[in-house]
């Protein structure tokens, strides 16, 4: 389906990643946003607060991030596409209800413009240290989808992708920006509405009495949704449930319910996968990065190539689910993976796990507050080819 032109600000813009994310959400058809202000994400909510009344959207500033997350889940069951926006401390507060969204298989987008942590940490300065929290910050076993844009243009484009993935897989999608990308101002081209492909909510169309809000058959199908108020009289619970949505509190039901939540993402990793590969065919080492760090890595990679090193790159756009098959395959071809990221070891550990000793993994850590010095990445590349 094409985007609704009402929400698409077609044209060339010079805006930062936060504003571009807001525009992406509107273009994607998001019409409900609940949020609570927090640096460095607030501009997304501000953009939406200004734009929504002119595009038929509903923005509400809630009393905290717990409420924001709960509100978007409730709203989604009322029909609209929904989003919330936050940064570290707020992301932590959202965790319990992110689990609820997972359990209720409620499509929603959660934007986290990452800043340095733990705790209040570095409010205005960058980090990529919530990547593990994005995956498993809520309790229990589950899988989500997480995306990392590396430019304001991508904050626009990939926010649309995030909504499309959320609707396709009925899952919360974590849109993991970082402060640099959020506050960086660049040219953002917003195309005509008929150039933007969006996935609408898959509403059920069959007989009312046959409706099942969940499908745990293992067929790989995702049950369609309904919206409250249409006479389906559904029951939806965060308790372990059956396909009718009714509580089912035993080990067998738990197995069906939880396996479904995990399998629908992990078994479809290749369908969900989004990444950029460059010069990996003859590469001896591969730099794996995401978000702002992928742009810093470019300089190191250029310098390495100029020095005659066979270095390739993989930029993860979808970070979760992790492209484990790809890493397993490449591990037997290359000497080393170089993983720079603005944390002290998160995605690098995933790479190391799937490289499984066949290639070495060199982590290039950074505690946050600023981006890497490209020379540190270059040094790691040189170490990797030895």
């Amino acid at each position, binding site marked *: 389906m094409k985007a609704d032109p009402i929400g698409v600000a077609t044209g060339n813009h010079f805006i930062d990643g936060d504003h571009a994310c807001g525009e992406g959400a509107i273009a994607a058809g998001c019409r409900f946003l609940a949020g609570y202000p927090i640096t460095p994400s607030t501009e997304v909510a501000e953009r939406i607060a200004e734009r929504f009344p002119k595009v038929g959207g*509903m923005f509400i500033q809630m009393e905290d991030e717990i409420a924001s997350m709960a*509100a978007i889940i409730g709203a989604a069951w009322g029909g609209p596409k929904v989003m919330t926006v936050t940064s570290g401390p707020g992301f932590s507060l959202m965790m319990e209800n992110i689990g609820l969204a997972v359990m209720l298989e409620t499509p929603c987008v959660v934007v986290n413009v990452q800043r340095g942590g733990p705790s209040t940490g570095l409010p205005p300065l960058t980090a990529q240290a919530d990547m593990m929290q994005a995956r498993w910050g809520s309790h229990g076993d589950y899988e989500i989808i997480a995306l990392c844009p590396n430019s304001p243009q991508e904050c626009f484009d990939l926010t649309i992708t995030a909504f499309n993935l959320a609707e396709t897989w009925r899952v919360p999608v974590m849109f993991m920006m970082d402060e640099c990308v959020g506050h960086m101002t660049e040219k953002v081209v917003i195309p005509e509405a008929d150039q933007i492909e969006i996935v609408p909510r898959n509403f059920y169309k069959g007989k009312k009495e046959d409706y099942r809000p969940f499908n745990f058959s293992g067929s790989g199908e995702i049950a369609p949704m309904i919206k409250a108020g249409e006479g389906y009289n559904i029951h939806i619970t965060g308790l372990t449930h059956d396909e009718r949505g009714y509580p089912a509190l035993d080990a067998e039901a738990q197995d069906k319910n939880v396996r479904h939540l995990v399998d629908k993402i992990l078994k479809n990793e290749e369908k969900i996968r989004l990444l950029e590969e460059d010069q990996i065919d003859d590469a001896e080492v591969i730099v794996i990065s995401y978000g702002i760090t992928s742009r810093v890595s470019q300089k190191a990679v250029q310098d390495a190539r100029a020095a005659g090193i066979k270095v390739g790159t993989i930029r993860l756009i979808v970070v979760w689910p992790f492209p484990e098959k790809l890493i397993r395959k490449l591990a037997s071809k290359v000497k080393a993976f170089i993983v720079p990221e603005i944390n002290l070891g998160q995605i690098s550990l995933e790479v190391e796990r799937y490289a499984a000793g066949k290639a070495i993994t060199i982590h290039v850590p950074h505690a946050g507050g600023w981006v890497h010095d490209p020379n540190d990445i270059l040094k790691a590349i040189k170490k990797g080819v030895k």
Partner: protein
Amino acid sequence: MNKITAPATSTLKVPESPEPLEHPMKDYLRTERFPHIWCSTCGIGTVLTAFIAGLQKSGLDRDKVAVVSGIGCSGRAAGYLRLDSFHSTHGRAIPFATGLALGNPELKVAIISGDGDIAAIGGNHFIHAARRNMNLTVICINNFNYAMTGGQAGPTTPQEANASTAPYGAYEYPFNLPYLAESCGAVYVARWTSLHVRRATKAIAEALVKPGFSFIEVIAPCPTLYARRNRLGTGLDLMRFYHDTAKIQHGANTKDIDIEYQKEIIVGKFVDKDKTDFFTNRNSFLQNKLGDKYIPYKGTK
């Protein structure tokens, strides 16, 4: 306190029924989920009955009414209602319901949940929903303790009452919920007990059709925990207690209706006033400011 005892020989003739009796409210209940989890003589079922009767009385289209609960014994209410019903997380029924009500503005959303859920962990959401005059009806089943987790003290436990985490008696000052609701902006505030089924039903019917934030506290027995721990007898004994000590005082100043341990309980309708609800107010406000540029949110098709 008086105990109700059954007469030694009952003169009541129970008619033989060839068919199992049908629940008179079965159209509104997910009877396929019965037996429910509640203990015998628990007050929660009575509140559910009052809710269904109130909904019928309200004249609202049941398909346009949704119920949200939090977590707790009371929080299981949503799960037995054959309406669009949502069982959310502990304390978060109100923000979930806020989203639902705004997401589909055709809906009337009611919250049925416990005192711990609404006034402790969910207290912040409660005061803000009331402040915003969100179009919600909150029914708080106050059994003076956290029942589901085993009878701990909570923000409504009266001083002196015993609870599993207040083994020497509770000493904190409890909330007076109608006072809290009124001071935060609720347009309809009432308190009843599970003995006052007819009046609670009427209050629920009134609240459901009242635009804005309405609040009804229903005092209900938890015979298994609160009553047992405090040696107050069965649910029936507590109903007798409500009968003997509840005093109807419509329009009472909510400041003056604190609940003290096993003392008089003031019940009645305390607040019923008009104030534009959040959704209507937002629409007219933005229409005013933005004129032709304003496109109101109307939900999805």
